[in-house]
């Protein structure tokens, strides 16, 4: 065993990795719990990659075969139902974990200098996760996915100037067809994973480079907060969380297997109560509650522009907030974050209560 270790060490430069692992530590304070959510998101992403590769062995990306191939996988392939169910549930949990990670980083002001690029890369990763969810949702080619994708791409088409182009780009034409399915499959298994791998590498590098951020409320304290070794102490705690997530996934997959529903029929009327996936719910509900016209401008357009503007402001917060994380400007951004969280939670819940203005 020692000889193998020596062999690998000489060829792979394991000392450098060992050095990094020995050097990395994590501050311990009352907000340390939120540090685990980045690792949790990464773990769930790993599950997505593993189960996604297994699904690829059976999935056939065409309007004629997609639904049938998923049905075959779920009914005829050993543990096929489990793999698909875990992939679907894990996708939702991953986006949930990424959101918790993002909001906790916002409230703890982890984006302050020198971590602006870490924040920006993290936001891009969240956007990529949403794109993974949106593109993957259509792949089983079932009724709900078909119409949810139609609604989603319709909203994209309403964006001024670039909307019509984006709609045709996403759909591969004016309508959702087998061409859209092939395109979404390409996004889901090739383009998005390639881009995500690069951005994730950058994000992890930046986390390693700058270490964990200490919130402003803890930063100035004397003595400074104690630190915990990343390997093995923090990593072992991370693993406890991952195992808990795995147990939750097993429970969800066995008790609430992901349904396949009916095959998409482009000529059938849209079924009642079409909703997007929960993570797009707050945006969907925002557009739904807006009046038809606001100051003579189409309500939907105002909503899309408002959400887009909000996203840009949210992305640029490291450059807008007080770099010390203290003072009235910092308090303003913290409260804005709280309001944003309440807004997102309430509007997401309203979608599932079927509330209408």
């Amino acid at each position, binding site marked *: 065993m020692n000889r193998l270790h020596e062999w690998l060490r000489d060829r792979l430069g394991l000392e450098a990795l060992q050095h990094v692992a020995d050097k990395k530590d994590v501050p311990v304070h009352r907000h340390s719990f939120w540090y685990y959510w980045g690792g949790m998101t990464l773990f769930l992403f790993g599950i997505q990659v593993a189960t996604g590769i297994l699904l690829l062995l059976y999935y056939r990306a065409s309007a004629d075969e997609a639904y049938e191939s998923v049905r075959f996988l779920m009914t005829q392939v050993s543990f096929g139902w489990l793999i698909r169910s875990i992939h679907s549930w894990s996708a939702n949990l991953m986006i949930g974990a990424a959101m918790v990670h993002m909001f906790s980083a916002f409230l703890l002001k982890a984006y302050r200098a020198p971590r602006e690029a870490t924040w920006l890369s993290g936001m891009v990763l969240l956007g990529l996760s949403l794109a993974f969810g949106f593109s993957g949702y259509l792949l089983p080619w079932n009724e709900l996915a078909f119409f949810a994708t139609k609604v989603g791409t319709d909203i994209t088409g309403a964006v001024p100037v670039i909307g019509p182009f984006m709609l045709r780009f996403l759909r591969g034409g004016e309508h959702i067809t087998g061409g859209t399915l092939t395109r979404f499959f390409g996004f889901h298994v090739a383009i998005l994973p390639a881009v995500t791998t690069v951005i994730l590498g950058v994000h992890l590098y930046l986390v390693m480079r700058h270490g964990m951020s200490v919130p402003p409320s803890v930063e100035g304290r004397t003595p400074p907060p104690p630190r915990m070794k990343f390997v*093995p102490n923090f990593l072992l705690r991370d693993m406890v969380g991952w195992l808990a997530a795995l147990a939750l996934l*097993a429970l969800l997959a066995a008790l609430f297997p992901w349904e396949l529903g009916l095959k998409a029929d482009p000529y059938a009327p849209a079924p009642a109560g079409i909703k997007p996936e929960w993570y797009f719910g707050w945006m969907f509900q925002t557009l739904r509650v807006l009046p038809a016209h606001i100051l003579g401008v189409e309500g939907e357009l105002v909503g899309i522009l408002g959400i887009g503007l909000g996203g840009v402001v949210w992305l640029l917060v490291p450059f807008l907030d007080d770099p010390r994380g203290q003072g009235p400007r910092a308090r303003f951004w913290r409260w804005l974050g709280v309001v944003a969280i309440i807004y997102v939670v309430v509007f997401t819940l309203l979608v599932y209560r079927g509330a209408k203005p």
Partner: protein
Amino acid sequence: MRPLRTLIASLAALALLAALPAAAAAARAGAKPQNSCLDCHRELDDARLAAPAKAFREDVHGAHGLGCIGCHGGDPTDTDITSMDPDKGFKGTPARKDIAEMCATCHANVEFMKRYNPQPYIFSMAEFRTSVHCKRIEEGDPKVATCTNCHGVHGMLSRKDPRSPVHRRNVPATCARCHNPEYMKGRTAPTDQYALYRTSVHGKALLEKGDLSAPACNNCHGNHGAVPPNTRDISLVCGTCHGREGELFAKSTVKAGLELEGKRGCATCHGNHGVQLPTDALIGTTGAGVCGRCHERGSAGARATDVIVPAFHALKARIGNADSLLDVADRLGMEVEAGRELLKQADDQLVNVRATLHGFDTKQITAVLTEGDGLADQAISQARAALKDWRTRRIGMAVSVVAILLMAGLLVLRIRRLERGAGA
């Protein structure tokens, strides 16, 4: 000189303008009218004479550019009473007995009818002569329907027009205008058809639901050759829509038996004008079962019924059982599409049994029942397998969750030991 010339030119122009309306009126007076019959009759004070001209505005013949001359003769270009001179071919009101022949001059002429419709309905006088109506007309009966009694006259609409008395939804009421107790007083023909029809499955479908594929009177009795279908023909009549049942019945031994007994085929069990939606209760010798009406207890027919009826209900029970089991599995989130497909096939076999019963062939019926049983059993097996799979999944889930939590517990212990060691 110049002002004088201008004055003369202006006066000449004014005179020309004044002469124009007079010239136009003269030209109009000289033009021959298209249909003087309508022009005059429309203006008449006698409502009886004015009504045809007013109604003709909507007439299907008028819409195709045909005028009064086609039926009444005369000269429509003559604006005087002389247009109705018999010398000009004026025929007046056609006699009832001549109406069908008169309509046939155009409606039995393929070439003429093709001018207005590439696939025209061609009226057959020969067919009409086979009808009870025509026979009675020829016998001089004045109360029997001819073309105009059903289709209307002056204001006749296409049969596709929902306002037309011969539009499918209106046919039963049109027939009932004559076939009612009051009009038919003193005749032997039954008069309860319309009342019965309105309560029948066909009548409800056509009159209440507006289902135009449901039969009206003419679909069984014929249009222009309307006759009461006799016993020998009734399975062919019903069979035009209920094809498989009609075909099986026509080949069955029961058909011949009923003929010998003077019974009326399908109507023996189902009735005729008042035919109700057949339920499974009709199958059997007891209760609402119709088999017992002919097959006495202990007879060969009753014995066959005693075998088939329980097997039929057993198939229904099997299908119901499979359906509930699949429902349970479905609610538990299991994939039951394959089971549902089998159940659909078993259901099809149940429908097949209902049709096959009309052949009265025990062997054939039993074969279909057996096939249905097999499919229902397969659906039950699929549902049970799904439920078993669901139980296995729960056990697997419980075992894996325990194993995962055990590992998590061991990790927690490892962390504690590690940190205790470091603290010490």
